[in-house]
């Protein structure tokens, strides 16, 4: 294993210290229990949004803390859910009196830990709502599994709900909006190589030089099938095809198209993928009203990408365009 770390067991703590050193103008980083909050938290009268999950997906979630997006992020160990004491402390740090939304990716550990935190916070009189994101169509037969995983739509939901909270929407309104975004978005990913968890020291899964994992999860969970490596054109056809099979779009619909890098894929390849996606959607008379291209939800040093489509209406478009000032996403602010 070659990594730019010191001791594997120190990597997450040292990462957080680095974030604190680099971005003290935007966020405060708390240790023991660890969480990241926007520098002006708590914001009085505003619904606070708290997310979190295992580390190794940077910039998600800590990189999305700031004005117009998240109020707090709770980082767990690499690929492992954070714990309820972190979530409760973060909740107390950002609660501005208008309630707190937990925006949670559908992974067994994340859901159970946030549920425990919600119980503890409600015991303290904090109004908490929890929305679980599950947009990954890579999971088939989701009735007989832990359900679809939460992937790319999480980034979009954090941005859109963050904008709504900034505008003063109520907790039920922001939670309902979050459910709308989740219901209107689908994603699927592909891995070309596995990532390596620092504490494990070897790749999570083995792929042959000529193999790819179609429908992979962001921790290297297997997806629909292991296939032979193919052209960007063919891979986009498979990924976008699966997304469109599950998210019926009509001619003239407008979408946000999100091409996300898994950590070790060059931006050059992400633009090749975006170009194929643009052509595919144009052929179907689906308009890309907004787009996002880059590595926003990564899997350590996994190579590959995911495609997320979100059906847009005027409200979602306006909330997407609203100002955001975080280390991971920034415009209009």
């Amino acid at each position, binding site marked *: 294993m070659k990594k730019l770390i010191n001791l594997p067991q120190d990597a997450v703590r040292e990462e957080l210290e680095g974030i604190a050193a680099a971005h003290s103008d935007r966020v405060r980083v708390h240790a023991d229990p660890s969480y990241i909050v926007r520098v002006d938290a708590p914001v009085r009268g505003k619904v606070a949004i708290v997310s979190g999950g295992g580390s190794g997906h940077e910039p998600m979630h800590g990189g999305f803390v700031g004005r117009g997006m998240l109020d707090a992020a709770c980082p767990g160990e690499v690929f492992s*859910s954070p714990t309820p*004491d972190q979530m409760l402390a973060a909740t107390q740090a950002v609660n501005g009196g208008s309630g707190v939304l937990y925006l949670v990716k559908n*992974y*067994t550990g994340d859901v159970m830990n946030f549920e*425990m935190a919600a119980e503890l916070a409600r015991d303290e009189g904090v109004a908490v709502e929890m929305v679980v994101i599950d947009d990954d169509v890579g999971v088939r037969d989701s009735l007989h599994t832990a359900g679809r995983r939460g992937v790319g739509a999480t980034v979009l939901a954090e941005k859109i709900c963050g904008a709504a909270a900034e505008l003063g929407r109520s907790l039920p309104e922001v939670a309902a909006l979050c459910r709308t975004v989740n219901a209107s978005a689908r994603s699927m990913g592909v891995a070309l190589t596995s990532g390596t*968890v620092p504490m*494990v020291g070897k790749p999570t899964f083995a792929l042959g030089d000529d193999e790819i994992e179609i429908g992979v999860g962001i921790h290297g969970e*297997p997806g629909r099938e292991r296939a032979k490596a193919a052209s960007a054109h063919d891979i986009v056809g498979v990924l976008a095809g699966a997304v469109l099979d599950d998210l019926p779009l009509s001619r003239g619909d407008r979408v946000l198209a999100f091409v996300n890098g898994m950590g070790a894929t060059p931006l050059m390849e992400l633009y090749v993928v975006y170009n194929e996606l643009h052509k595919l959607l144009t052929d179907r008379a689906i308009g890309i009203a907004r787009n996002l291209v880059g590595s926003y939800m990564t899997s350590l040093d996994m190579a590959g990408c995911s495609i997320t489509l979100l059906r847009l209406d005027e409200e979602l478009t306006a909330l997407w365009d609203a100002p955001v000032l975080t280390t991971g996403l920034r415009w209009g602010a």
Partner: protein
Amino acid sequence: MSEAVSAPAVVAWMRAFAATVAREREYLTELDAAIGDADHGINMERGTQAVLAKLEGASAAGAAGGLGPLLKTVGMTLVSTVGGAAGPLYGTLFLAMGTAAGEATELSLAAWAATLDAGVAGVRARGKAEPGDKTMLDALLPAVEALKSAAASGLSLEAALQGSVAAAEQGMTATVALVARKGRASYLGERSAGHQDPGATSSWLLLQTAAETLAEQEGGGTTP
């Protein structure tokens, strides 16, 4: 041999469990790498070491109290240090056992069986899992049933604990053939069959260390 579970016995249990998890860390992680995310051994070692530190701090401070507070301390420590799915599940196991044990300072076999039963019911509710889903419940539920029937037929605490380990081991081994329906392993579908569940394995280790320790400490006479 004691016929009641005492607080010192529970502390000895946690010490033995931490040592066993540390010894089996790589094995648990390998099982998890096959069908999960390769962190079960690492996470359980971190959590059980934190429990040890917490209990040693507590005994140094001369903290007494019943079994309930002791089990709840174990549960809260696991919840806040293990992470992943195992943290809330093992944490809930001990928190629910603590609630059931209450202020008792000793538990007879029947009371201990009821305490573990309450803990496992908590795990079942937290994880929304059913027997046969290829989870830790597949080791824990048979162990609880074995303890309860041992209590009903008047076996000694030691014999009952040994019987529960055998039942847990059988349940754990049976997870090999199962297709996972909960947790990350469920994403493998049919590909999850042929692998032993890591959570059921750590649960078996928990019961195995219970059998090694809980009847060892002399706690005086039995109380209901």
